[in-house]
């Protein structure tokens, strides 16, 4: 007993010494911080603390964004802005020159518009089914089912994989001599060349994307479901409310903030889709799964004439689309909070 007391005392002392050392270490900052506070005042101090992050954000986001914007008003193939030729809004004019906006073939830069339409199609299907499946999975995993922890891990596992790995796994499954075709042949069906058909390619692009990301959104919705007070369900049960009514009147309204986050995040990620589909289908067949980010990448980096100006203009258009989506999210959140 005495030994135990001694040990506790020693550990307390060690903790005390450690705390003192930490305190002394942080006192080093006291003098310069006091000095800065004297200069910028108490109100200016939050900016000082934010400065490292702001510098990082400025260096890697704001400055490249400005450079990109400037690039979109230039032409030629030179890499450095100072060497490039000012072309005004010519690149935007080239991108937006269409006889009929609904038909990409009538546009001067048809691939940009095909990329835009493909991205819109992909996003509509991917977001709809992603949210739906994530919701269903979250509702199931929120129940008291056997092996719940295991299933949560199973659904979350693909999120941990790199997009390239995800795409390669599915590519091997879906190729002419892949597992899927081996299965089809084994049940007496013909092989399907999935990546030769535009419809199948788009289907698998959407499917693989949902498979890869569903776990993340399921987790957000699961957190939302677990935050709903259980007594609401108990009260509904005592009132004899049907399960459908409970879902529509309690679960869905209370889950709405999480659902909104999921929808907006999925929308933004959907518009930005590139890596998985690039590895899976290469944008083919033809341009059936070539999305807007791949168009930008090809235009700026893989064509023999690297058209940085046009690629920049297209990325500014993409940025505007994302900006509109973000504003919509903010407006929806604010309307929800106010209403």
């Amino acid at each position, binding site marked *: 007993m005495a030994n135990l007391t001694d040990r506790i005392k020693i550990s307390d002392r060690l903790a005390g010494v450690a705390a003192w050392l930490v305190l002394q270490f942080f006192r080093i900052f006291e003098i310069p911080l006091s000095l800065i506070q004297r200069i910028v005042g108490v109100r200016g101090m939050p900016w000082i603390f934010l400065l490292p992050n702001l510098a990082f954000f400025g260096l890697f986001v704001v400055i490249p964004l400005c450079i990109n914007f400037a690039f979109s008003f230039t*032409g030629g*193939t030179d*890499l450095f802005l100072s060497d490039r030729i000012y072309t005004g809004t010519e690149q935007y004019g080239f991108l937006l020159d269409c006889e009929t906006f609904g038909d990409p073939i009538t546009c001067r830069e048809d691939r940009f518009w095909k990329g835009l339409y493909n991205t819109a199609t992909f996003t509509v299907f991917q977001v709809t089914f992603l949210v739906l499946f994530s919701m269903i999975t979250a509702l199931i995993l929120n129940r008291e089912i056997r092996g719940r922890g295991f299933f949560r891990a199973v659904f979350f596992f693909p999120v941990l994989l790199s997009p390239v790995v995800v795409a390669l796994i599915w590519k091997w499954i879906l190729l002419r001599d892949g597992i899927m075709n081996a299965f089809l042949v084994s049940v007496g069906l013909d092989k399907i060349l999935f990546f*030769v058909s535009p419809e199948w390619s788009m289907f698998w692009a959407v499917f693989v994307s949902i498979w890869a990301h569903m776990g993340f959104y399921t987790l957000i919705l699961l957190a939302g479901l677990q935050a709903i007070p259980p007594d609401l369900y108990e009260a509904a049960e005592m009132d004899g409310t049907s399960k459908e009514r409970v879902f529509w009147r309690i679960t869905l309204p209370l889950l709405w903030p999480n659902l909104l986050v999921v929808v907006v995040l999925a929308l933004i990620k959907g518009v930005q889709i590139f890596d998985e589909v690039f590895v899976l*289908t290469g*944008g*083919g067949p033809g*341009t059936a799964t070539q999305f807007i980010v791949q168009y930008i990448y090809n235009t700026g*980096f893989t064509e023999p004439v690297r058209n940085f100006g046009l690629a920049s203009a297209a990325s500014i258009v993409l940025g505007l689309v994302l900006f509109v989506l973000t504003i919509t999210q903010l407006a929806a959140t604010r309307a929800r909070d106010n209403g």
Partner: protein
Amino acid sequence: MTINLKTLLTVTSVAAALMASPALAQTELRMMWYNDGSEGEVMQTILDRFEADNPDITVVLDVVPYKAVLESLPIQLAAGAGPDIARVTDLGGLSEYYLDLSPYVSDTEYWETSFGPFLDWLAPDSDRISGFMTQLTVTGPYVNKTLFEQAEVTMPGEGATWDDWATAVVVVADKLDIPIPMAWDRSGHRVAGPAIAMGAKMFDTEGNPALVDDGLKKMAQRLYDWHQDGTMSKELWGSVSGSTYLGANEDFANAQVVFYMSGSWQIPQFANKIGDAFDWWAVPAPCGDAACTGMPGGAALVALQDTKHPEEVGKLMDFLAQEENLAEFYGKTLFIPGHLGLATGGVEFATDDPRAKHALETFSGAVPTISQTAFDLQGYKNNRVLFNALISRLNEAIVGELTLEQAYGRMEEDVANQLAELNR
């Protein structure tokens, strides 16, 4: 014992100088390299010899995927951050970044007599010496001869047309249930040779690029039809977008293809991978209405102008370009020599494989039959603009996104737009 301070300082200084001098004098050169087969290993043995003779120079062979040479290297060069030396295939397209080796090589006449016409490919606008060909390539087909024998179909002989081959390979594939009768690398360069064989001129009378004409349309129509009737599988050309390169070498090596249109650079790979599993047989370029020609091409080792060590780079390039070193390189890699002396005198290829020997003879023998238009196109520094417009738009027609007429219109627009951007 007391040590005099002056003595101590002197000893320390001398020791420091002795330790520092090798480090200070050491020059590191970086060579960006890609492999088709095992040529990187052959190059490394030659580099080891160079380093032994020149202990003050270290050469680092950076082996990268071919895609990195195509896509990343031009950006690095534009940013002034490239390697000292690189192995490239866009010979004229990158010429603005090449170093003129003339002041740094011991005998410029040797370079001019040994690499004469190829130096023009590397410097279309000047008389510079920038590097040498690590391989001369000729496009042409390989045939799985064993399948022809098993199907008891006679292989079309010398002078056979593209249509003759297309008919024959479909019969073989049907008889033996082979999934892909004919496959071509997904590359505009591969299409250019047969298009020229059909009469494509590629340039107008004033020498300006003019991609679409009747000759090109004839070949494009055939490629379109072959994809629709199953002679060619849409899996290769139709399954990706844009100008992405795809080869059917794996499918051919797995005996899934009867006839494979590729080029001489596949020889070492097939000798290694296929060996004697079946008779892979290089055949002369099939004929069109105008000629029986493939496209010349190749890879070159070039010195880059942003190097900080031009003298050392010159020394290394001079060493590598010597006839005995190149004879060893071409001989061991089974590459067609890009050195005129070796091309005439012959190289002893390090293989006993009769298929590889036959392929080397076939492709080397094809060089004199290559059309002048094909040489002109290869020497045109923006040829990749034409190749990429051709392959990407033709592909969109094949998969049904455009009609062939629309595709031709788009090819012309793409070429015009890209050249206009280049000439700003």
